[in-house]
């Protein structure tokens, strides 16, 4: 449960682009189309909604 809670928190930060930003063009906390695309392709968006 502890790990799942941390995972959901990390995913939340990941979606908001507050986790692992390596590109100088990517501003902290700004939406990124690539991340939304990857989530969609891996069927994760609906899955997280359910969680």
């Amino acid at each position, binding site marked *: 449960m502890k790990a799942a809670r941390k995972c959901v928190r*990390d995913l939340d930060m990941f979606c908001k682009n507050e986790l692992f930003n390596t*590109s100088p063009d990517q501003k902290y906390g700004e939406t990124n189309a690539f991340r939304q695309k990857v989530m969609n392709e*891996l069927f*994760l968006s609906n*899955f997280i909604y359910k*969680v």
Partner: protein
Amino acid sequence: MPLTFGSIISFSPTDSQDTFIHVDGFVKDKVLIKRFDHFDSKLNYSKCLFQIYPAFINTYKKEAQMLRDPRNEYKISYGQKRLNMINNLQEKIVTEFNFNLETFKKVTGQPIHFGQTIQLLHISSNKFLSFKNVEADIERENYKIGLDEFSSDMTIFKFLPCYKHQRESEGVIYLDDSVYIATTNTALNKLSYVHLSNPTAIKLRKFDIAPKEDGAEREENERLIPESQRNEVGKLKYKIEVNVSLESQTRLKINHYTNFHSENINFLECGDIVWLNHSELDATLVCVTEFRNKVFDYKVEFDIGSKITDNLRQFLGNTNGMWIIEHSSYHKGGPVRWDQSYRFKHLSSGMYLSVQKTKKKGENKNYSKIILEKESTSDNVFSFVPVAGAHLAENSSHSPFVAKDAFVIVRHEKSDSVLQGTFDKDTLKKKTAGELEEGRLFANETKPCMVKYGASSEEAAFKIIKANYSEVWETSFLISSFPLLTGFLETVTNMNYVRVMGLEFCYNLKFSRKQVVIEHGQCIYWIR
């Protein structure tokens, strides 16, 4: 050959083959021993790889980390003074970082000696192996070992000899040597060693039954567990944990994967993650999952959604079309060569691109079918053939290595055929004889197939596009988070049957397990 700084290595117990120290590094940082002799979608050899770095200086980084501690808040002044202090510290940290980078560049390629301080960077997650000052999960008397994002005193280790002849020689460590890994960071400042726990049996459980329940209530709860899950509970699974022990040490074998190569090199390396883009169709080879009759079916298809953006000149590929280039001996690394054999491992599912011979009903002729396979067999061994028409210097057959963004023909070794696109059944019916003769292919009307090697090979040219580090990290992070989320979802779903420890407040939630599993079956399948 001596082991050098910058080399990428893996560790395995000296007494067993195909067994390595493995850590996920994204959502879990438990360091465990994993066997690679069976299929597990979560196993990936890149998660066993560590790069050897020298010890770094972290004076200013430590100072900055201390300031984040609320207890040290009084040290931070306010207003302009505060701003100056932060700017000053920032500059010092950047200088320190550059100094550490220079140190790494200087020692890269130099042999490592026993007793020399080193750091081990986990390749997949880009985190340092780190000693944790807390008790281990299985052997409570030992310390935990995990991963840290930044280097510190806790990430410093050293190799020590484990045989007399190693002590008496010049002290240089050779490839495939057996060593002890030691750290001096324990509270007592005593030398302590990386140690493997004894195999510990862990009962598989979907959920815990609250221990305080007694007699009738417990029985009632157990009765409510569905039959299928009741069988799961109680099955044994063996875990070997990697920890740090003050008392005992374990010999570990160093398995050399590859030497250091600068990121600016112009050729592909084993372990690189690529998209296979069919040059004529401008389509990417992807794997699509279909849920039919309660069974998941993998299909290898062409995807036309992946395009090179005009403004950025960057390839935006489909995540389901990311393939890991793996040497036919999975523990071998190094540059990808024209004259050697490789496998394509699908990043999301962990399965191999494979070609199988099948016969159609009522026909004697054999057909090659492109599928995904769990096991690594001779059916999934491919090699790269240079395209005769592509006259790029780095792509020429004179160079023994396959260049990044090279045009190649993907040849299946067992059947001596090449990967190509062909019209699918529906299109064949619709097309006129003239159109078929013209033979022009469109991605949305085609499917991947195998054609005999030698015939019009230029049509079968694929462009290999390497994914950059951040694309790989983002995808791997999401894939790693799947099993945890599924486990969580399953636990929550089961709450109407059994009380989950610490979550009694959810006891009355009513979920339909079947509904959740079917709706999200596709996700769950990827994970399993």
